[in-house]
């Protein structure tokens, strides 16, 4: 399988084994995700397959419950605010870092990436204690600030990657032809790096929408987000309504992922 012509028989066997192993690992990667989908459509409240009878009762439960609806709204608002803030800050920073004159690049890059590295509980507890001093725990503002810090590395990375293939002479040409810097940015640079910026924004949105631990510390019942609601539910007693919520989150991830894939493909062309 997928071997050059000079391969020996034992090599062929070996290769087949390796490919079979890799395929089973890939199945191990993907199967657990899709197990939750049929379970969420089951009429029975158990988590066994095959499903005996399909129904939408858990979705009816989910959409009919004010707590879940409130949680979705909270997540959406926090994620949109985080996306706007993180995309703006991250894109600006990436524009600076990508310039050849940027000082202490390695050091500053290490700082900007560090929110991806620091254990999430440390960020959560630190934010809880620190923002508490200013009355920002159990507020949406506090949650958005912490989420933005977590989301900016993704924007910095995607926009920096796009800028590495961007022809800076285009901006220079615009400037030399008399465009004011803002026009040069909005009409020349930004349209060219837009796929990277949008990718970063999608990452930022997903980071905030899916985040549990910081939200667990920074929110009270009123600002409770969808993942926090799910987490508490699983901790209490896992029930099929959570499967419906998980399936919807999975669907959202697939949509965001597809958007991202389309953007990258356009960029490669």
């Amino acid at each position, binding site marked *: 399988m997928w071997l050059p012509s000079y391969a020996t028989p034992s090599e062929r066997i070996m290769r087949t084994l390796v490919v079979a192993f*890799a395929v089973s690992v890939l199945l191990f*990667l993907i199967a657990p995700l899709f197990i939750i989908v049929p379970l969420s459509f089951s009429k029975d409240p158990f988590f066994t397959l095959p499903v005996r009878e399909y129904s939408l009762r858990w979705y009816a439960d989910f959409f009919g419950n004010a707590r879940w609806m409130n949680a979705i709204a909270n997540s959406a608002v926090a994620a949109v605010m985080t996306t706007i803030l993180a995309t703006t800050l991250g894109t600006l920073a990436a524009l600076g870092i990508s310039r050849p*004159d940027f000082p202490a690049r390695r050091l500053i*890059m*290490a700082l900007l990436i560090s929110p991806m590295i620091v254990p999430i509980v440390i960020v959560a507890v630190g934010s809880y204690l620190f923002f508490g001093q200013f009355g920002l725990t159990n507020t949406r503002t506090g949650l958005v600030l912490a989420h933005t810090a977590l989301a900016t590395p993704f924007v910095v990375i995607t926009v920096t990657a796009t800028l590495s293939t961007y022809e800076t002479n285009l901006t220079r040409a615009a400037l030399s032809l008399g465009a004011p810097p803002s026009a040069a940015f909005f009409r020349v640079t930004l349209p060219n790096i837009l796929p990277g910026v949008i990718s970063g924004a999608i990452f930022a949105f997903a980071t905030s929408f899916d985040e549990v631990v910081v939200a667990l510390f920074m929110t009270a019942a009123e600002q409770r987000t969808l993942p926090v609601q799910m987490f508490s539910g699983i901790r209490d007693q896992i029930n099929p309504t959570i499967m419906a919520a998980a399936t919807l989150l999975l669907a959202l991830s697939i949509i965001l992922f597809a958007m991202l894939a389309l953007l990258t493909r356009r960029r490669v062309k």
Partner: protein
Amino acid sequence: MTVAEIDRVNIFMAVRRAERPARRAALSLALPLIVFLVVAFVAPILYLLVTAVGNPETREVLPRTLEALQNWDGASTPDEPVYAALAADLKVAKDNSTAALLGKRLNYEISGMRSRVLATARMVEKLDTGPYKEKFLALNQDWGSPETWAIIKRNGGSLTPYYMLTALDLKQAPNGSVERVQGDQAIFLDVLGRTLFVAGLVTLFTLILGYPVAYVLTIAPKAIAGIMMLMVLLPLWTSLLVRTTAWVVLLQSDGIINDVLMALHLTGERVQLIFTRVGTVIAMTHIQLPFTILPIYSVMRSIPTTQLRAARSLGAPPSSAFWRIYAPQTLPGVVAGCLMTFILSLGYYITPALVGGPRDQMVSNFISTYINRDLNWGLAAGLGVVLLVVTLAIYLLFLRLVGADKIKLG
């Protein structure tokens, strides 16, 4: 220096000066984010560090007592003025309801101190005049113990090593010397060791499972490789909570994995998988796999296939062509992927909380417990510092070996 050298230095300086506006312009673009991160990310972490050594309780509640203790010899039972000062402090504490705070703090180092402080505060409320010493000793004879007073005096400082020492299973004896905590009090090194062990195990498993996947991704025809890549990236994109939820469901005793094991007659009875170490490691391995695969894949893709062909044509058997030519070149990817997975595994919270049992909780889970259940912020912060130091040490290794600009997203 010769004239030529001086000229060279001057030119160098002039060039640096000429470049300065451009450097400033570049920096000013990144400045909003740098400032934002300092305020919203670095400051909270620094605050956590301060909380780990902060010691406000005794200083704030017992200012008079601490002053009276200045002249105490440290070995005998203190004299009346110390008790009078304590009575005055506790009266104020009772009015401000800060006695409980002090009791809780001293209770960490002297067991039974919480109730002793509260009972004493209730007693002094009813007393108008001294002498206090006998009444204190009558209420609780431990008020006469020099050890109690040594610990109170020690906590008069604005900083304390207590939480950091506790997080490392150490304690300070009343005489100030540091010793190891004995018996069932010593839990934190065990938790740290467990965290490192689980992270190491997960890293090893993702490498064993991920390396062949990365390899097959490089040799598969383009269309098939595309689909395979999708199967690696989609889980990475799915919320960590959704993936953990899937494992909670799969690992149930009456769940799907047990159904399959029973149907295949691999086990006679249902196996406990949820709330176990095995379940935790399986779920974490699943979640971390893409993080290990992607860096290995990106290095493998850059290795020319002609090299393996050359090795073979020069007579190397397939195995030595692989192990001596191919594998060493993939090492940078292996290092990057494994370090990334190890760093991220150290900080796991959600998965051990939902899939693990009480014996599988990691440092993160203990930090959360001390904040939420025990309200012992200092100890939570102390454990946080330990976790942060270990993580940053490995992050520095990562920066040295791999570099921050090598982090890519899919």
